């Protein structure tokens, strides 16, 4: 199974791109294709971000330690799609209209949060190599990569507020984010209480 995971993920990450381009060329993205590309690229970024968050719980439940490499892969996939999303926004939607773009980021909280989600992913993408892990040391690397929690929360709210009224979809993704973050909270509480009981038995 392990052999198949990486090629399958490559397909999953890359495949939406030619699909969208083909749909665009065939005129299947509707009357406002730019809006559609913007939404779909953002959605793929969020999906891969959530998938990367799902890896650790999955590792714990299954004991498949090798999945840790896929966690970084999925994180980079999220970054790739977030870049695509930002490019659609900057080039296709606003065509380098920096004045309006800056106003949009500064004045509209959901755009601010989207930018925040993206900016926080940059150091994570830059330190996604094995060499970086070695250089930073596991503990510091892990602490840095905890930024993904802030990023995914910002991305989730970015999505909720991007939708005019029917937030059924954002609620669905938001619930997944909440569940995956809840794992971390529970682990932390467990770790703390077990540490306390250990120190208690010593004294």
């Amino acid at each position, binding site marked *: 199974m392990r052999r198949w995971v990486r090629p399958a993920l490559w397909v999953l990450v890359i495949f939406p791109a030619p699909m969208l381009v083909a749909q665009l060329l065939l005129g299947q993205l*509707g*009357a*406002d294709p*730019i*809006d559609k590309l913007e939404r779909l690229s953002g959605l793929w970024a969020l999906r891969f971000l959530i998938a990367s968050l799902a890896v650790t719980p999955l590792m714990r439940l299954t004991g498949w330690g090798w999945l840790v490499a896929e966690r970084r892969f999925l994180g980079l996939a999220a970054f790739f799609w977030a870049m695509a999303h930002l490019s659609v926004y900057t080039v*296709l939607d*606003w*065509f380098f*209209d920096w004045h*309006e773009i800056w*106003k*949009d980021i500064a*004045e*509209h909280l*959901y755009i601010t949060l989207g930018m925040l989600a993206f900016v926080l992913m940059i150091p994570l993408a830059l330190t996604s190599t094995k060499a970086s892990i070695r250089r930073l040391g596991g503990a510091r690397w892990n602490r840095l990569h905890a930024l993904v929690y802030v990023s995914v929360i910002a991305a989730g709210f970015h999505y909720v*507020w*991007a939708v*005019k*009224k*029917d937030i*059924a979809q954002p609620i669905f993704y938001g619930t997944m984010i909440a569940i995956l973050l809840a794992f971390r909270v529970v682990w932390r509480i467990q770790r703390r209480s077990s540490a306390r009981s250990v120190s208690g038995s010593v004294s």
Partner: protein
Amino acid sequence: MLIRKPDDIPSSEITPEGLYQNRRAFIGTAGALALGGLAAPSIARGLARHGEVQEDKITPENDATSYNNFYEFGTDKEDPKEQAKDFQPKPWTVNVEGLVKTPRAYAFDDLLSKLPVQDRVYRMRCVEAWSMVIPWQGVPLKDVIARLEPLPSAKFVEFTTLYDPKRMPGQRRAVLPWPYKEGLRMDEATNALTLLATGMYGKALPNQNGAPLRLVTPWKYGFKGIKSIVKIRFTDRMPNTTWNDANSSEYGFYANVNPTVDHPRWSQAKERRIGEFLRRNTLMFNGYADQVASMYAGMDLRKFY
């Protein structure tokens, strides 16, 4: 350009030929009127540069009938065309109620009979910052109101969309407080631009565009153009409107197109005309200031958004 007249369109809904053929000139005139001294000569031909006043080309019919906000038939833009394809808009009854000489129910044809159908090419600006140019056919609302004889005490008109979750599947979820309601002040309702549309592109109104009867107020955001109207009520109090009820901080009663007042989430300064790449500047009152601005003289449009 050849405009076909399919046999199944009742004669009352056929556009006067001269008007239809003159629609280009009409857009030009409307645009020039609207822009007034600002930019009248620059109703530019061809590709205008970023942000300049550009020509209003009629939106392809397929775009205007397949990209719709009509939550009664689903919240995705593509939903209404699919979900409304079996909707039967006739027979149709419109209830006229409230401060009116004779409250009564009108069959669709009775309400509009003997009123000549007019051709109006209007820009439509959605609050989501996209826009279209649509050739409507319909009857000026002021002519309908004149026939209905509201009492002098009537200050507002309230419109209601059909509530029938069996026929309108989007109403099975409480995305908005159903039924959809909209309203106009009496002077807005009787403004010369205000149209009760029964058709577009020379055909009967498609289901997804609000068959058989919808409101068109081209200087207001698209959501004011309530679709599939079943009730017209005259009242002395400002009526509740659906988007205002759903989210009053974002959607006001007036909903006048105004590039200087942002929606809390979306900039309103620019818009993308469907089918075009670059955004264009949004015009005050969607370019119809000359015809409508006087109605709002002295009002703080930031407060009465």
